[in-house]
């Protein structure tokens, strides 16, 4: 079996006394699209944010290409922090796309995409902007390179955010509800970019309420509920009948919302 791109082992996340993840085990296979679905508050976004090291897990281990992210854990459960520089290098293999786009408002689209190339990777302005422009072409926004985020539609902002992550040539892309703040038309243009990316063989982890996207583009579907991974499998298995009763109940709420093809 090939090494998973990301492996999550017995991951627990607690905020005070409230546990939001109760010991998650999950493998993200390379070159595939893994979708995390589940009701609000199920912990899917928290799990994704742990993979991006935006949240520190309470216990458990996440490895990226076999290397520990954030913390290493000895067999006795002793946790040790990975040195910041090493951790940044491991994190740089991962690109992240947010629900709220999170573009920097004081930079143009081109500036947003080229920023890390210049400040982190010390590329010259010319080289960084050439590479950034190539990414903007890829998401179909070369004509908007000089625009500020406030001058772009939500869909365009999200495509710039995807280009910003891709410019660093990540091996894995994480998407945290990338279309949840977009209307259906703008959702379409973002999902198209993600489909292209999937077709190129990018390893992707997508938290989404777009069940249709998960069913058609996803290679693995993982269903979370109340901080537990209830099951994982290919879409045909997860959405095919008979279904897990909790998933059935969850999907019922989607029948009116474009997932009727699964009924």
């Amino acid at each position, binding site marked *: 079996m090939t090494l998973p791109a990301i492996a999550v082992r017995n991951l627990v996340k607690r905020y005070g006394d409230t546990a939001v993840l109760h010991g998650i085990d999950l493998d993200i296979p390379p070159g595939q699209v893994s979708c995390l679905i589940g009701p609000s508050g199920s912990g899917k976004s928290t799990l994704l944010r742990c993979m*991006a090291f*935006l949240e520190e897990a309470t216990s458990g281990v996440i490895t990226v290409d076999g290397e520990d992210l954030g913390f290493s854990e000895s067999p006795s459960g002793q946790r040790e922090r990975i040195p910041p520089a090493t951790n*940044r290098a491991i*994190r*740089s293999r*991962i*690109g*992240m796309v*947010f629900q*709220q786009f*999170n*573009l*920097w*408002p*004081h930079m143009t689209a081109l500036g947003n995409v080229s*920023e*890390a190339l210049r*400040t*982190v990777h010390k590329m010259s302005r010319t080289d960084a902007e050439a590479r950034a422009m190539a990414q903007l072409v890829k998401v179909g926004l070369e004509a908007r390179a000089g625009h*500020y*985020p*406030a*001058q772009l539609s*939500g869909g365009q902002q999200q495509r710039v*955010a995807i280009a*910003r*992550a891709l410019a*660093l040539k990540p091996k894995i892309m994480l998407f945290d509800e990338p279309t949840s*703040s977009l209307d259906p038309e703008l959702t379409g243009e973002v999902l198209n970019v993600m489909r292209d990316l999937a077709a190129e063989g990018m390893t992707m982890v997508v938290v989404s309420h777009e069940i249709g996207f998960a069913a058609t583009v996803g290679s693995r579907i993982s269903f979370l509920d109340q901080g537990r991974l209830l099951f994982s499998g290919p879409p045909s298995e997860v959405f095919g009948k008979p279904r897990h009763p909790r998933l059935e109940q969850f999907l019922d709420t989607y029948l009116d919302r474009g997932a009727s093809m699964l009924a």
Partner: protein
Amino acid sequence: MSFDVNVILAQLPAILSGAGVTLLLWIAGTIGGATVGFLVAVGRRYGGRILGWPLGLAVEVLRGTPFLIQIFLLYYGGPFIGLALDPVPAGLLGLTIYGAAYFSEIFRAGFAAVPRGHIEAAECVGLSPSQIVRRILLPEMTVLVLPPAINMAVILMKETAILSIITVPELTLTVSAIGSQQYAFVESLFLLAVFYWVLVEVTDKLGRYAEHRLSRYRFSPT
């Protein structure tokens, strides 16, 4: 008795000298106050409890007491703790400390107003903490704090008049002295009001212009 401002304006060189002192104190006090205020805000944000608590207390005391009292205490009380300053340095120091307390609150709010997600996005693409402050936090914050910072600068401009009570030879002291000598009290006060108002208007216009220039960097409210 008639209303004749020419009695005052006849002493233009003295007035200009007073205006110069006012402008100088104001500009230096604003820059000093903003700088110290920024450092205080940074200290309170990143300094932990050891730094944050005393800084917070100092800010509260300074915001909770009148500038008049502070400047009296500094100038007349300073010598008791070995801080005997001439009027101008005392005035500048007082203005800086007073301004710093308010500016620190403006910057604190500015830091807090930069969305957490913008910082997370920067972490994700590998920016170091100092790069995040320089490249993301500061520029974003500048746009957000500009209107309240200009407002604070306007307030400081008017507070310089209070420095006349510790005999700083600024505009208010100069003009009201001329007024007393010439028995032209109303004229002197009228001229002072006009002068401060014009300066405030100019400052405001410059501030509006800067805001307008920076407005395109604001993120859309969506």
